[in-house]
């Protein structure tokens, strides 16, 4: 009976703390709220002084207009194809290589691993010019393979999964080996099923990284049929003045998938960041 009364001043402090935190939280998502607000305004009420949060009515048709303004469906499909195939390839090739690095002994292993780590330090922009020339030489400019393959063999992914595999005890694999399981079987049937969180983290990083990637698609695509969402959003800028309401609608549409992925798999995402300290950077 005494306790709650004693805690009274603390409770006030707590309320204040939460109020301030909520205020800070809202302040930090104001840009996103402003995006949503702008995307729902009638086009003739975008430019008001002072700016208003709500128009005279909610203009849902902006979303349909934005969708039809460019071949947005095509951009969407392209982005999905590129992101998903990169994720699949990265998970497959990185986990295979990581298995070798984590569980096998072979000549040149440490040297090779060092080489992989070394390339993590080289900024992607170093390779962007030669990659473009390579793609031109292969005749791959403006193709899916050019969008997908450069990101599909990840040194970062190999590093992340190797670290993760090392945290999994080997006893299970040893037991399976004695029972006559092949190396591939050990990897496929024992280690991979145990590596859900690690694979999920890498998968999400790769997905979000590809979904948001801008510089490489900007360089390697030149027709609308190959463009991805970030390029599509940026296109609202160049066409005869900026159509802010449509651009904001398009941005909202582009953000939704990453938000869904994040909310579904938040746990793994956070774990992956803390595991590597890198995330998608």
């Amino acid at each position: 009976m005494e306790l709650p009364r004693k805690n009274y001043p603390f409770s006030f402090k707590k309320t204040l703390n939460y109020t301030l935190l909520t205020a800070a939280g809202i302040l930090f998502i104001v840009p996103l709220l402003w995006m949503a607000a702008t995307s729902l305004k009638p086009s003739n009420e975008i430019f008001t002084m002072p700016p208003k949060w709500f128009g005279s009515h909610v203009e849902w048709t902006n979303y349909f207009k934005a969708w039809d303004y460019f071949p947005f469906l095509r951009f969407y499909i392209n982005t999905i194809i590129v992101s998903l195939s990169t994720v699949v390839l990265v998970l497959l090739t990185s986990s295979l290589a990581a298995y070798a690095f984590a569980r096998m002994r072979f000549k040149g292993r440490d040297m090779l691993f060092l080489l992989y780590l070394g390339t993590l330090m080289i900024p992607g922009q170093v390779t962007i010019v030669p990659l473009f020339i390579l793609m031109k030489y292969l005749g791959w400019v403006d193709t899916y393979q050019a969008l997908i393959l450069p990101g599909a063999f990840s040194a970062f992914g190999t590093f992340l999964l190797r670290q993760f595999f090392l945290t999994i005890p080997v006893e299970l694999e040893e037991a399976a080996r004695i029972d006559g399981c092949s190396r591939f079987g050990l990897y496929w049937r024992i280690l991979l099923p145990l590596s859900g969180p690690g694979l999920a983290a890498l998968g999400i990083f790769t997905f979000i990284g590809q979904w948001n990637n801008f510089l490489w698609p900007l360089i390697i695509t030149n027709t609308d049929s190959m463009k991805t969402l970030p390029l599509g959003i940026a296109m609202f800028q160049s066409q005869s003045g900026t159509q802010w309401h449509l651009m904001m609608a398009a941005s909202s549409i582009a953000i939704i998938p990453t938000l869904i992925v994040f909310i579904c798999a938040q746990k793994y995402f956070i774990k992956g960041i803390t595991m590597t300290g890198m995330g998608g950077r």
Partner: protein
Amino acid sequence: MANYQTSTNSSINPKPLIKKPDRKSKRIIETITPYLFLLPNIIGFLIFTAFPVLFSIIMSFFDWPMLDKPRFIGLENYIHLFTKDELFVKVLLNTVYYVVVLVPLNVIVSLGFAVWLNSISRGSVVFRTMFFMPILVPMVASALIWKWLYNPQYGLINGFLGWFGIDGPNWLGDPKFAMLSIIIMSVWAGFGYNMVIFIAGLQGIPKTLYEAASIDGARKWTCFWKITLPMLSPTMFFAVIMTIISSFQVFDQAFIMTNGGPFNKTNTIVYYIYQNGFEFFKMGYASAIAWVLFAAIFVVTLVQMKMQKKWVHYE
């Protein structure tokens, strides 16, 4: 491993004669298996990472126009960069300014929110999600949203300042404010990563340390300086390095919000690589700039590594 071989070799096995060649081929298989596992990744790694890296070094010694034949010019590109290209020096300084202002801001904001979120008992996940959201927004979209927020006449920011009778500047159009505006936007867009890393780091600090300190009568502020910061310093060290590396590579924001302007005030190294490579089609020159970027990142990271003894405490 040893178990495996003896068990197949045991006398219970009905056909020991067939086993002999089998064992030999098994050994061969054992030796090549690791390489088979590596193969898919290595092929891609060689083609799309190792080869371009080497090729890029070679290109940087050439005058390499996109359509014409490349011509070997030795160190000419590098010499030109530092002695004749005034714009490059400006671009380099712009990028350094961006890094020097952004990194401390990013660390302060992310550390502040990490400590704050770590102190509350309930609902920290909800707030964490809120603060983390900007990370998920494509940088292009963030840049466009902020360009709209920064709009001198109709933007929300100047509208807000207008309430207080302040006539807000032309954020992105004013040479004095343009880079600062990009930095503010970039802190917003990027601090979530470090915040999450710091929260994890804070949770790793044993509670007993704080309890012991409070018994000794230490204040919260003292605890923060004497316990939290030293204990968090290894995490912070890594976060700072990663933030520096990634901020040296700033591009999307400058490309979308200002096109490097006004007066090249927001032109950055990577933007300059893009311009030289894909607007002026000077591929060799662009490669040389890319290697200067690498050198800058490398040197800064090396210095950080050397300096860590002074402020990073390992248990």
